[in-house]
């Protein structure tokens, strides 16, 4: 559980600040996105303490339960899943449950919403808090009804004595007061086999709001007196503004203020389109010192491969190299993954308000608390003067422009006290400035004995960082580096993200070496981090080995796995696709490919079969179908798991078949959907997903499990259909030898 994030000393002006901004939030249109707030929460400006029940849940005088989470809704349906957990443990009907997402003024600090870990972390904390609350409430009811706790039953938030049939509701017990007590972690939890809410496909309420045009997103927030702004971004990384003529905005109407600080330039206007026009003028008139963006793209992978000075052995096994050297069959292959984008459909947006020496920022960040500490560094303001309120945006899939635009809005708002400043990035800002998923190279070696048995696997990989989230350092903001007195970007220590899933789960000798590199483009966390490329490489390689061993690729995997849950997902997709039959009667122009991974080697299990159809005359292929099976442990919301898995499969198919960032020495070329296309409806494959529910097992996030296996399954299917082994992402038809 997170530790208490703030000290108890809490000034009255700070309390007023929270109350005011709290009311501001409640008074305006974004409220429906948060659902009905119980008054207990709306009026509270109390700082959160992670071990108090009250930090996680409140029940108001009407019996409405509000859950507080430090996580944010990213379109993954986390709100509904967390509400289900609390409702289940307390036996309160879902219609009386509400939720507040990350808000540095009201919710616990749970750092980032990332790594598919919200269900494990926030869900676990909320379950413990709800169980503790139930224990406290039952204790109160026992006194009230004068019967022992073990004779009490709870239904729909009402406690009844089994003998006398007398009852009292939670609300009547609490009378609007907070639930006293701390979360000990020892309160008895409900037996999962008795669950009636958790595990069901409880519908998300926000979909109705989205489908009818209610204000749901930060982009929809309108505050009184709000003004609009756009940023003049440099043409290439590291460019410095040499000159900007005084009349640079032309005589564009509606300009309230042109803000310049070093190479950071923003324009604030009354109407949104005025800002867009003003920026277009500025773009033409600004003169920049532009460094060249190097190395040239055709030398990118070599540039990575040359960097071996900062390497680490992820897992060492001195028997691996000799085992491969002595093997009767040796296989070696190199796989490549380009830079790829998050590509949120709604470009990043933030609103900031500087008033009475206090700053409020509404943001679709994945980490409200870390954003606050980084803004504190950027603006040299104490954290207690800053409040960050997470507000949903379009799906982000990792660290996109959300934090950067928060900094942009804050810098501008500080120059215009009393007015909420809304900054919306343009499409090209997002495409060219978001931190990408790093380019990577993976070299795999393996050995087989004469019977085709796998003896050892050796993996060496090259990658830039998969984590440059702000984390308190203003140099991680684009704007921070552009200021007159710039903050410098210092890459943190390389995170485990690079070698995620590089270690094979297969039962063999294994060694993994990681070369930490510096690539030319900005990189950070993109859904599944390095696991995407590492699984693409490993699962393509397993296919190559199976082929060399003369074995069925599915059988080959099963033979080399010990974990029954791993085998179960593979066997499930084999059954769903009639794998064995179809491998026997190979259909012309068709190919089937299989791949598997356990995400992070300790989370959800996922296997997938891809089916491709080739058109030799047109030298094209089509992805016909993806069939997946997932085991994410105890399922909280079965439809949520399915939805996330289907989405991950389609997204990965798009990454894997179409996507790569292109650049030249003057900057990023792929600045929009024309130059960086993603999969559209006509190319989307049919999707079928089976969810293997494991009641009583630890629930595990499902959001990232599909990314890597889908890439490899498509490549493997293409090999079966064409005999060409595609080892470089994206899997372009030009790589196929059409003969």
């Amino acid at each position: 559980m997170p530790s208490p994030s703030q000290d108890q000393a809490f000034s009255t002006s700070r309390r007023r600040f929270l109350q005011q901004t709290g009311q501001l939030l409640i008074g305006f249109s974004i409220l429906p996105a948060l659902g009905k707030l119980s008054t207990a929460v709306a009026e509270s400006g109390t700082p959160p303490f992670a071990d108090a029940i009250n930090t996680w849940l409140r029940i108001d005088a009407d019996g409405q339960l509000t859950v507080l989470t430090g996580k944010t809704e990213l379109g993954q349906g986390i709100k509904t899943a967390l509400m289900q957990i609390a409702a289940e443990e307390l036996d309160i009907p879902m219609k009386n449950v509400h939720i507040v997402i990350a808000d540095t003024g009201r919710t616990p600090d749970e750092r980032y919403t990332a790594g598919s870990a919200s269900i494990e972390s926030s869900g676990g904390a909320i379950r413990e808090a709800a169980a503790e609350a139930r224990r406290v409430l039952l204790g109160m009811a026992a006194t009230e009804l004068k019967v022992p706790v073990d004779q009490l039953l709870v239904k729909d938030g009402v406690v009844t004595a089994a003998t006398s049939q007398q009852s009292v509701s939670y609300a009547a017990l609490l009378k609007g007061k907070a639930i006293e007590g701390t979360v000990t972690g020892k309160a008895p939890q409900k037996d999962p086999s008795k669950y009636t809410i958790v595990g069901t496909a409880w519908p998300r309420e926000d979909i109705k709001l989205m489908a009818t045009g209610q204000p749901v997103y930060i982009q929809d927030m309108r505050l009184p007196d709000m003004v609009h702004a756009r940023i003049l971004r440099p043409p290439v990384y590291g460019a410095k503004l040499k000159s900007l003529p005084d009349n640079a905005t032309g005589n564009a109407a509606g300009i309230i203020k042109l803000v310049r600080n070093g190479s950071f330039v923003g324009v604030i206007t009354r109407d949104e389109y005025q800002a867009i026009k003003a920026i277009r003028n500025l773009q033409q008139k600004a003169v920049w010192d532009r460094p060249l963006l190097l190395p040239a793209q055709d030398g990118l992978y070599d540039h990575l491969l040359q960097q071996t000075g900062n390497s680490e052995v992820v897992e060492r096994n001195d028997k691996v190299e000799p085992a491969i050297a002595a093997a009767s069959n040796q296989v070696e292959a190199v796989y490549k993954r380009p830079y790829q984008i998050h590509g949120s459909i709604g470009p990043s947006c933030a609103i900031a308000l500087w008033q009475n020496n206090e700053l409020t920022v509404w943001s679709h960040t994945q980490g409200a608390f870390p954003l606050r500490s980084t803004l504190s560094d950027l603006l040299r303001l104490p954290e207690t003067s800053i409040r960050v309120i997470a507000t949903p945006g379009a799906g982000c899939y990792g660290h996109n422009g959300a934090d950067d635009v928060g900094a942009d809005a804050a810098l501008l708002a500080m120059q215009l006290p009393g007015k909420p400043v809304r900054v919306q990035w343009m499409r090209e800002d997002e495409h060219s400035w978001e931190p990408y998923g790093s380019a990577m190279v993976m070299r795999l070696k393996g050995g087989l004995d004469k019977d085709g048995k796998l003896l050892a696997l050796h993996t060496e990989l090259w990658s830039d960082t998969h984590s440059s989230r702000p984390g308190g350092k203003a140099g991680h903001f684009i704007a921070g580096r552009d200021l007159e007195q710039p903050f410098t970007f210092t890459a943190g220590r390389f995170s485990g993200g690079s070698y995620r899933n590089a270690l094979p789960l297969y039962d063999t000798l294994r060694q993994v070496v990681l070369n930490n590199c510096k690539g030319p483009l900005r990189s950070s966390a993109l859904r599944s981090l390095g696991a995407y490329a590492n699984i693409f490489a490993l699962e393509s390689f397993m296919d190559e080995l199976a082929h060399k061993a003369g074995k069925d690729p599915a059988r080959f995997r099963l033979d080399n796995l010990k974990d029954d849950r791993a085998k179960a997902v593979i066997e499930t997709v084999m059954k769903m696709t009639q794998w064995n039959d179809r491998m026997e009667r190979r259909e012309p122009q068709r190919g089937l490919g299989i791949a598997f991974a356990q995400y992070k080697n300790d989370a959800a299990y996922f296997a997938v079969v891809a089916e491709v159809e080739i058109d030799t005359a047109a030298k094209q292929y089509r992805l016909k179908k993806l069939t997946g099976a997932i085991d994410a442990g105890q399922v909280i919301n079965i439809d949520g798991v399915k939805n996330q898995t289907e989405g991950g499969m389609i997204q990965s198919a798009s990454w894997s078949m179409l996507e790569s960032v292109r650049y030249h020495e003057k900057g990023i070329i792929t600045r929009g959907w024309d130059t960086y296309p993603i999969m559209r409806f006509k190319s989307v494959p049919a999707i079928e997903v089976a969810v293997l529910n494991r009641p009583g097992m630890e629930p595990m996030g499902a959001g990232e499990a599909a990314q890597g296996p889908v890439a490899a399954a498509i490549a493997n299917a293409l090999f079966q259909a064409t005999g060409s082994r595609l080892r470089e992402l994206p899997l372009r038809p030009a790589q196929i030898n059409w003969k």
Partner: protein
Amino acid sequence: MEKTVVLRVNGHPNSVTIDPETPLLYALRNHLQLNGPKYGCGVALCGSCMVLLDGKAQPSCIMPCSAAATHEITTLEGIGNQQQLHPVQRAVIDLQAAQCGYCLNGVIMCGKQLLDENPDPSDEEIREALQRVLCRCGTHTRFIGAIKKAAVYKRQ
């Protein structure tokens, strides 16, 4: 130069004082406080800003207000509401067809035009009708299912 432009939106005339070059999208969102059409790319490549112009789904991000004034404009808010859902909206909710939902406006508006013209579309026709809309969350197959279901609701 700002001018008064009369936009007929969801059946009502609205006078807005605006630079007539301003794309319709900004007038709808900021002057008329509508949330359905959204900014995604500004160049007619993503479909987030879709509206119906005289019943046809069109991006509102490239059409200036001066040109929009000659059309009957319908937004997501104009086809149904929480009490009275349009069949496409109802089907999207029933099938839980959304992740982040940012693309939903484009999907629903294109779906509505399709069903107005073709009460029983095939999968291929649905894909064709939604081709202009980008979804990054990968909700495509659910959307196709939702339009099929909406066709059934509409025929009932």
